[in-house]
């Protein structure tokens, strides 16, 4: 293969990896929006907290002498999911539920406030510096002639792809097949009516936040391991990108979040590949504007029907 095509393959691999991570975080935005029609801006912060918990648990277990990586990762994952879900649940209970009947704008401001609160809470409790973890999963495959261009695909990248794909598939099944999932869909169609029919909508909404937070914790673990660095400010940018991905794919739609994330990631990688990398955000966000101009509800979103 020529250098040009190998280079393209490498950049696609990079882009799909970044995109998968955007997609994982984007689901949290899209699920909450789909059900109660609000944008949970504190979601990026939940992801950041998931990352921190992972780091603390891994460092703690390692210092206690536990060396088996799969066990360490499993314990870290479980604790991260429990902690993040608790935060997700609490945020909804404290900052959103009391405001549910009021204007959407008020809930939005409350979400932004929550985001700032959580960020500063972590700054004060963990310090504002980068916390680093040595690489845990290293190695990978390389292919292509080294004298032309060597494409690398690491185990970590594969893990991110697999985890994203499996989580998405599992969630789609859960939403479409299970009783809870059916209740979720009912809520998203008409919250008031669902309530009248005897379904505990508060419980469903709480569960939505918990699931979103659990996925953010998975993203926090994967990205924490992939980049090896976390600081209290990572949630903001990651949240912004994931939110963009959710809007791009059609907010409220779970396959849309996946598609939006991947498109955003690949666009960024290809822009950095063929233009000066300063322009990657410009191109990515121009794409968002273009898509919203021609398809205001996003790629896979249903056109919004005004709820009466």
């Amino acid at each position, binding site marked *: 293969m020529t*250098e040009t095509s190998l*280079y393209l393959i*490498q*950049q696609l691999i*990079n*882009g799909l*990896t*970044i995109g998968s991570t955007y997609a994982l975080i984007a689901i949290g935005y899209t699920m909450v929006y789909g059900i109660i029609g609000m944008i949970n801006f504190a979601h990026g912060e939940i992801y950041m907290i998931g990352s921190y918990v992972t780091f603390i648990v891994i460092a703690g277990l390692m210092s206690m002498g536990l060396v088996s990586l799969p066990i360490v990762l499993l314990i870290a994952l479980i604790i991260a999911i429990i902690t993040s879900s608790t935060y997700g649940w609490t945020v909804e209970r404290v900052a959103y539920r009391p405001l549910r009947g009021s204007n959407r704008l008020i809930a939005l401001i409350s979400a932004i406030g929550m985001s700032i609160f959580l960020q500063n809470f972590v*700054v004060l409790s963990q*310090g*504002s*510096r*980068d916390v*680093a973890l*040595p*690489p845990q999963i*290293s190695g*990978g495959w*390389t292919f292509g002639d080294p004298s032309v*261009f*060597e494409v*690398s695909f*690491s185990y*970590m990248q594969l893990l991110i792809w697999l985890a994203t794909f499996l989580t998405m598939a599992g969630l789609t099944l859960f939403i479409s097949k299970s009783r809870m999932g059916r209740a979720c869909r009912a809520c998203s169609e008409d919250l008031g009516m669902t309530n009248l029919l005897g379904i505990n909508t508060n419980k469903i909404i709480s569960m939505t936040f918990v699931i979103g937070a659990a996925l953010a914790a998975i993203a926090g673990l994967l*990205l924490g391991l992939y*980049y*090896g*660095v976390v*600081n209290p*400010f*990572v949630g903001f*940018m990651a949240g912004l990108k994931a939110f963009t991905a959710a809007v791009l794919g059609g907010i409220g739609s779970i396959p849309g979040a996946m598609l939006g994330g991947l498109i955003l990631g690949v666009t*960024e*990688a290809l822009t*950095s*590949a063929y233009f*000066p*990398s*300063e322009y*990657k*955000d410009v191109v990515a966000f121009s794409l968002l504007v273009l898509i919203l101009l021609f398809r205001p509800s996003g790629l896979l979103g249903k056109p919004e029907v005004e709820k009466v």
Partner: protein
Amino acid sequence: MKTLKTTLKAVALAVMGTAAMAQADTLKIGIAGPATGPVAQYGDMQKIGAMMAIEQINKAGGVNGMELEGVIYDDACDPKQAVAVANKIVNDGIQHVIGHLCSSSTEPASDIYEEEGVLMITAASTSPTITEKGHQLIFRTIGLDSLQGPFAASYIINSVKPQRMAIIHDKQQYGEGLATSVKNEVEKAGIKPVMFEGVTAGDKDFSALIAKLKKENVDFVYYGGYHPELGLILRQSKEKGFGAKFMGPEGVGNPDISKIAGEASEGLLVTLPQSFDQDPENQKLVAAFKAKGEDPTGPFVFPAYSALQVMTDSMKATGSVSPDELAEYMRGNAFDTTTGKLEFDAKGDLKQFSFVVYNWHADGSKTAVK
């Protein structure tokens, strides 16, 4: 109208005079820099250097019968917050400031200090534009990017001799300024960089950039910016089998880069002010830092210390704390400090400042090259 203004001024002066007399026993020194945020480490270096100087000066009897008191202000290396901090310092009646740290913060803050008659000495901001506005009260005890850039470039030209060189920067005043200066110098020597690109500060994923460097067969990268981004670039380069040599300025030279990059930080070249903590004459101070559990090896610790020495020596010599008189004295005299003999030029910059190229190690230590 004019008489009214004069009267007001006189009243204001009188009030200020009494205020100054009332607190004549302590003299507050503002120490402004990032105490939080991604580059808070550097703020710490400046803080421990300045606080140690204040402690030592007070121990030796203070200045003109006054005891010094350091007041810490946090600008988080954010230009907007730096302006707020500068205004707060002026409102608090403080007339002597050590700081700020990031050039992009020092620049807007220095305009306020100059206008409000506050003497400012930065121990860390290296952007040349800060002292190019003709300010009278703004000084620095650290070398400029316009010295460091050419110094790094001459090392690249004479010792590294790269075949295909790339220059990456973080699009901020400090990083891009240095990167541009290095680019201009190496181009004069006939080395044409194959890439000159910016990354976004705070980004975490550099895989696309690294693939591009790899495709261009780059064998040497100069990075203008701070350690969080370069640390990740090094770490991801190693994972992706990109093995070029990297070089960076003092903004990357602190042990945190080894925490982030791990083994990938081995062999990184860093230009830093010479290690003042290795100077035999400073060993007593080094011991004093260590006794407090502080790390004296950071590049801004001793420049901050000497900034206070310059300030207090001028106070002793002039018998005054007036910023204007101190500034005038500082321009005309030489000072013996922990960072050597310092002399200021008309702009407030040091007449001489030397840098050293260091080889960085994976455990966060460094050894001088050459």
